[in-house]
């Protein structure tokens, strides 16, 4: 036995029933769980920001820039787990220069760049341009130069120009909403279009991914808003938190309904793959699906947020509840991605058995590395908040 295959031989002894021999190793591991998770956080955070901007939900104003910067921080990391998972990371650029038009995956680079360059960067730039100019006058040293560069030379602060900033920013947000839908619906399509895999292949997949993205993104902004307020020793605006919680509640209902519909449909039709999938769900996915995703990640938040719509305890208690709920939802959606990505590879496409998966601690596909990919966006966000603090933005003068 060759040492490098030791873990595969170990897996071989854990196979249940029959799998095609090539199906032993899981080809997509924790890094591919992170990919839809992180892109979902981006799309969700952006959609929350858009609520304030486009739909004029002014109570969310304190979280607007925070949501945008969070989306930005996570988007900057979104591709990294993906690239590092490739067998040939050095060839990743090929997906941009020789894209294969029939592949759902080939379009990702373009969707990503569109979202990063056209939507997020532009929206943030239009939102901050006036402050870049003012900050470049107020600050000294290297920061002054960074702000000067960030103005891109557009230092005109006449009311007419500022009005244009607003108009263009608004326009970008309007374009951004369908883009956010596209970004994450499309990630769902990558899985949903694989007809070989009955656990993935459902037309609902893009829609489910989209709504779960909104759920996780809203919870993320809620958590970050509370954390940033705590660090700044500046109590969070409870009205904003209540409003976010209300949106979280509504989107969670939609998300849960769609996922339930998907499962009911599966059970009712009970196609050829039904038996293996029911074994999967009641066996290998029992903890991650029923306990983590459904009970902790969906059921408890849904009930709690539902009760909070009718009865509001004291502010302080509410804040703690929101803290716990946002964490539960974030964990729940992580396991939703886990159940899709890992769950879809545990059963054989022969429908006669299961392979096994054990998350390693170290190594590029290990849990420590995964934790690093999750922590990195928070570090980027800390930097962005240092450079572009929303609380130091100049009040509008007109």
């Amino acid at each position, binding site marked *: 036995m060759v040492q490098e295959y030791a873990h595969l031989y170990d897996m071989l002894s854990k196979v249940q029933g*029959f799998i*095609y021999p090539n199906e032993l190793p899981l080809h997509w591991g924790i890094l591919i769980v992170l990919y839809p998770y992180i892109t979902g956080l981006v799309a969700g955070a952006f959609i929350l920001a858009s609520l304030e901007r486009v739909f004029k939900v002014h109570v969310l104003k304190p979280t607007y820039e925070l949501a945008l910067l969070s989306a930005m921080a996570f988007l900057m990391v979104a591709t990294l787990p993906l690239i590092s998972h*490739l*067998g040939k990371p050095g060839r990743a650029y090929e997906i941009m220069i020789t894209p294969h038009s029939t592949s759902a*995956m080939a379009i990702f680079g373009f969707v990503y760049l569109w979202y990063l360059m056209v939507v997020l960067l532009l929206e943030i730039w239009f939102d901050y341009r006036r402050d870049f100019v003012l900050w470049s006058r107020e600050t000294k040293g290297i920061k002054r130069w960074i702000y000067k560069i960030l103005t891109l030379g557009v230092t005109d602060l006449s009311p007419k120009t500022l009005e244009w900033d607003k108009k263009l920013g608004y326009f970008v947000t309007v374009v951004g909403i369908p883009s956010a839908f596209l970004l994450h619906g499309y990630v769902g399509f990558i899985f949903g279009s694989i007809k070989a895999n009955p656990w993935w292949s459902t037309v609902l997949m893009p829609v489910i991914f989209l709504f779960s993205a909104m759920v996780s993104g809203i919870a993320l902004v809620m958590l970050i808003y509370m954390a940033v307020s705590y660090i700044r020793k500046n109590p969070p605006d409870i009205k904003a938190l209540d409003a976010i919680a209300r949106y979280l509640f509504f989107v969670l209902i939609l998300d849960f309904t769609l996922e339930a519909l998907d499962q009911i449909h599966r059970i009712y039709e009970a196609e050829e793959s039904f038996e293996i999938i029911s074994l999967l769900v009641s066996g290998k996915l029992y903890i991650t699906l029923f306990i983590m995703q459904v009970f902790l990640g969906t059921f408890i938040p849904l009930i709690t947020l539902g009760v909070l719509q009718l009865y509001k305890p004291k502010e302080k208690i509410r804040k703690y509840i929101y803290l716990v709920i946002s964490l539960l939802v974030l964990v729940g959606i992580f396991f939703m991605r886990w159940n899709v990505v890992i769950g879809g590879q545990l059963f054989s496409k022969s429908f006669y058995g299961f392979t096994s998966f054990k998350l390693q601690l170290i190594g590029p596909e290990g849990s420590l590395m995964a934790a690093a990919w999750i922590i990195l966006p928070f570090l980027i966000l800390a930097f962005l908040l240092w450079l572009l603090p929303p609380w130091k933005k100049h009040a509008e003068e007109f």
Partner: protein
Amino acid sequence: MKSRREFLKAAAIAGGSVLVSSMFRPFNAVVFAANEPANPTDIWYGIGIDIAKCIGCGRCANACKSENNVPREPFFFRTWVEQYTIKNDQSVKVESPNGGIDGFTQSVAPEDIFKTFFVPKMCNHCYKSPCVQVCPVGATYDSPEGVVLVDQTHCIGCRYCVQACPYGCRYILPDKGVVDKCTLCYHRITKGLNPACVEVCPTGARMYGNLHDPADPLMKFIKDHNVRVLKPHLNTGSKLYYNELNEEVR
């Protein structure tokens, strides 16, 4: 002034037509599996496997590994043999220890066996292949003769094709980080030789041939038997035809 206007007009028409025609390309991308392929060449390779003739010796799987330098570990196979045993209670037991290379032993007691048979598996060389469809860089492609091949100098190792193949015929070469699969021994068949698995089969259970030639032995095999492909509901355009394929086989 007039000429400038005409120029602008012409430019607008040209730009507009480019835009409109570009709208059709993505549509092409969507209808991949709904299209019938254009197969311009005279040769259009298919494969025939006669389950009634397979004795489960595993020589095909062994020869394939030798011919194509497939890693010897029991989780890398371009072709392998499965032993199906249907018990009296109609439950199904499938086994393929080391892909059948070391032969088989029957683990079900004889009195419990309803019937048993061997099923050799390999790439189906589908003509509407999901693996070709999903490859993001076009590293997996159809040869003009209908053989699904991989350009390993271009493959980025994303493994999307591994997920998309309904038949489990692809694996990642651990040392190279790129995908590998059956080539129908393209290096041999283009020289008029048999694929290694066909060459060594002692009972003639495996054959390959030209689906465009009515006189080809493969076409006679398809005509004379009730052949079926695996997972026909997936509409992959499989060109691997089995004789005596039980419905239990997936």
